[in-house]
């Protein structure tokens, strides 16, 4: 029971982290229709910048400065890279962000090296918080959760209260209206893109030290974020939240299930020939199959229900 | 009226987007070989009606018949194969393909070329000849190799009609073929339409009433999602309901 609680906590942390990434992307996709393939690269930039900043002034200023820096980089990318290719259509934008992800993936090791950097959890939070079933629960994980939730609330508040938020919300629900919003639309795009990147950067700041900060970190998360955004429904923040938590929980819970399929099937009264041609399949355990789930859902949702879980419009 | 089961017959057609009903039970009957114009104030649902007939949107309710075949719920390409082709109000060509290739695409299906990879396109002689003929009829032969996207607006509009008729469909739906054209361009377009739709059934949406009365054998007036009048030009011209609809709309615009 307590073991289960731990698993759920871990799933929540991971899910909220995914949400932090996917909320930014959701805003960008919803407003601009740009599926930013480089989104996870901004996450990586966040982690690396936080590492560099924290070596100079410590973790807490980095928590604020790194996402801001990433946001500025994002805004610059939108203004001077994405906007010129916009007239060539969405596929050109996809190509641009694909190239951008590639280039960032090459530049980061240039600056910070190919080895993981020693970006550490601040000492204050590097303590066990409580113990459950003999397992210590690190305080930093709770901190991650709190930051994610705070960001979630801040985001909703910003969308509900500010003028920019009003425009963004209008654009999310009525994409055609964006065209009629008047002269400041390009500026809103730049701001939203920058803000989305900053959110990804923030996720990088708090995840980079909990896991590892290394040049491959964008690659390993990039596709999952897409799965979340598409599953949740393009432009739907609450959909992204649901999908993030779902994937986070599925991924984490399934690790605990090293139950081979043939046993699962025999529990259902089906016996199979384990030595037969399909023995790889029957011996495959649930936890090995779990990583496939998000991508399977991504493909199925796009092919059959393009609106996603809670979305109102098609990809 | 006409030979039932021939031509295009629409009965009880309805279409809603969410809670909003755009087409509210349209009845329309176009006889074989007839030139029929659909007119009506902006927002009456004319284009939507075309989209429903040609399979772009599924109808919410009602029935569409082409030459006695129920084509309700068919997809666009199936309806085309049944002999119904259309043009678009907003020019919808293949911008990177040349004029000739645009027309060849328009004719391809009905001139024997399936989705084949085995035969060369140039091997289909009748297809090339049909594209040539249409190009000539459109007066675009000298622009043969120009990409459609680089044509002048009027040329694009002409090509838009050309792509629709190139396949030799027996029923043609033209959505505002003269939209945005100058006086002389319009005249040329009307002559073109008259020429290329010879012997076919034509249904067109048109705002230019001069064009309508010039071309159409019969006219239907669509207002607020319903056909409020249908008949020969003279009859429709005198219809009171039509006047109200147009004047009402005009009055709304004025206030």
């Amino acid at each position, binding site marked *: 029971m307590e073991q289960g609680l731990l698993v759920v906590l871990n799933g929540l942390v991971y899910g909220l982290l995914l949400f932090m990434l996917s909320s930014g992307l959701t805003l960008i996709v919803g407003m601009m229709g740009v599926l930013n393939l480089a989104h996870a690269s901004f996450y990586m930039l966040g982690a690396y910048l936080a590492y560099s900043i924290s070596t100079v002034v410590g973790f807490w200023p980095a928590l604020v400065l790194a996402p801001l820096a990433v946001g500025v980089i994002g805004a610059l990318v939108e203004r001077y890279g994405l906007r010129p*290719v916009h007239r060539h259509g969405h596929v050109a934008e*996809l190509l641009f962000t694909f190239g951008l992800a*590639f280039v960032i993936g090459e530049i980061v090791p240039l600056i910070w090296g190919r080895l993981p950097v020693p970006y550490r959890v601040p000492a204050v939070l590097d303590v066990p918080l409580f113990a459950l079933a003999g397992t210590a629960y690190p305080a930093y994980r709770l901190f991650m959760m709190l930051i994610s939730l705070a960001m979630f609330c801040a985001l909703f508040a910003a969308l509900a209260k500010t003028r920019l938020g009003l425009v963004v919300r209008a654009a999310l629900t009525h994409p055609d209206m964006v065209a009629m919003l008047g002269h400041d639309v390009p500026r809103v795009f730049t701001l939203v893109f920058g803000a989305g990147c900053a959110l990804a950067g923030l996720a990088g700041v708090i995840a980079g030290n909990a896991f590892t900060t290394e040049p491959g970190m964008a690659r390993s998360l990039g596709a999952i974020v897409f799965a979340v955004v598409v599953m949740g429904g393009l432009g739907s923040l609450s959909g992204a939240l649901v999908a993030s938590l779902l994937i986070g929980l599925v991924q984490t819970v399934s690790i605990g299930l090293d139950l081979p399929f043939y046993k699962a099937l025999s529990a259902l009264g089906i016996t199979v020939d384990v030595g037969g041609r399909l023995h*790889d399949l029957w011996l495959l355990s649930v936890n090995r199959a779990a990583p496939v789930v998000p991508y399977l859902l991504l493909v199925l949702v796009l092919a059959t229900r393009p609106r996603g879980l809670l979305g109102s419009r098609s990809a | 009226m006409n030979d039932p089961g021939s031509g295009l017959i629409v009965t009880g057609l309805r279409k809603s987007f969410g809670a909003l009903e755009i087409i509210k039970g349209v009845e329309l009957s176009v006889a074989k070989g007839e030139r029929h114009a659909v007119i009506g104030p902006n927002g009456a649902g004319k284009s939507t009606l075309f989209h429903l007939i040609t399979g772009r949107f599924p109808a919410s309710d009602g029935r569409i018949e082409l030459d006695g075949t129920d084509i309700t719920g068919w997809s666009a390409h199936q309806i*085309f194969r049944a002999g119904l082709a259309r043009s678009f109000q907003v020019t919808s060509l293949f911008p990177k393909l040349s004029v000739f290739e645009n027309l060849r695409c328009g004719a391809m299906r009905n001139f024997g070329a399936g989705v084949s990879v085995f035969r060369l396109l140039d091997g289909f002689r009748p297809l090339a000849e049909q594209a040539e003929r249409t190009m000539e009829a459109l007066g675009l032969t000298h622009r043969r190799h120009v990409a459609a996207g680089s044509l002048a607006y009027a040329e694009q509009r002409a090509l838009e009609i050309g*792509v*629709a008729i190139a396949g030799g469909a027996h029923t043609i739906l033209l959505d505002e073929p003269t939209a945005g054209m100058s006086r002389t361009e319009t005249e040329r377009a009307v002559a073109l339409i008259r020429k290329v739709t010879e012997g076919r059934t034509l249904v067109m949406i048109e705002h230019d009433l001069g064009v309508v009365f010039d071309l159409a054998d019969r006219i239907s007036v669509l207002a607020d999602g319903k056909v409020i009048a249908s008949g020969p030009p003279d009859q429709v011209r005198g219809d009171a309901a039509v006047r109200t609809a147009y004047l009402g709309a005009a009055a709304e615009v004025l206030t």
Partner: protein
Amino acid sequence: MKRWAPWIAAAFAALLLPHLFASGFGLSLLNRMGIAIVFALSFNMLLGQGGMLDFGHAIMLGFGGFLAMHAMRLAGLGWFIPTPLLPLVGAAGGLASALLTGWIATRRDRTAFAMITLGLAELVVAVVLMFPSVFGGEEGINGDRSDGPAILGFDFGSQMQVYHVVAVWTWISALLMWRTTLTPLGRLANAVRDNPERVGFLGYDPARVRFRVYVLSGLFAGIAGGLQAINDEIMTSGNIGSEASGAVLLMTFIGGIGTFWGPILGAVLIVLLQVALGTLTDAWQLYSGLLFVAMVVWAPGGLAGILLAHAPVMRAGRLGQLVGHYLRLIPGFALALAGVAGLSELAFRLEAIRGGASTGRIMGLAIDATAAWPWLVAAVLFLAGAALLNRTFPQARAAWQAAAQ
């Protein structure tokens, strides 16, 4: 006859090339190029001709390659499967996988299609790793190409013999793919790329057109896979993954997606960059990435597009007018390039030194990357080049516009 001339010339060139580059290095390079050409052309069938951005194109190459590899192993067990015919097995594998993935992906177009293929790429790699008895897990599966029956005394073990297999198949595949562009399907693919909805109103189901193009593309990608199986004698999950798919996108786009032959340029260039520059510098990936982004922003037609833009000028016999302007671009371009290259090389070197490498050589020159002056020099070179280009480029463009009128 005129339209066949390039193909005959290509055949002669293919016969001649191995004698110009007979070293092991030269042959390896040529073999990689041939495979890359087939793969890139098959990719461009989708992107350039059909408007389908496929982020999982390597799936089809991978399945073709794995199937060919299994056939190669069967040949080792005594089955009569001649090595030169393995690409046919690859084609079958590519075709089969295309039927499967295409059935899902081609229902949608443009962005949605791209996203589906992105998901498929991740999905397939994960699934491949789950079935080690078929795909060999992390190790992959390997075989021996000389195990097949000898034909006319050739066992296809040597690089030279492999070259001839690759060359023949590259020629055949390229020719067939080019021929496809002249068929109704080829034209419909263009139409679906330009305006899928209109295609529907011309009596064709656009999804079906996409599906057929996709399957055909899979067949040729499978041939590339078969060739790769012969050349590398190993297939692993890495051959199927998104990295391999990204590489083909890069080379195809850089070559130019607007023409049939653009991807050939791209394949040759990127393989050269990868193999030749790859030995000189670690930074080739960064260079090709930067080149790609620059192309997307400034020259979406790729190299072929740039060349093609000069066709009217050449026809008008005014190429001579441009030479002077283009020559004036060279100093700025060279300076900027030297600057960028210098900066990246220095960064790479510095990184390597931090990682423990002791030799401080950049492209064979003894330059100390830990000192400040090389960095300054590189930065100044770049800025000077950029400033020069900023002046000369608009002039050159104006000259081109004037000449192209």
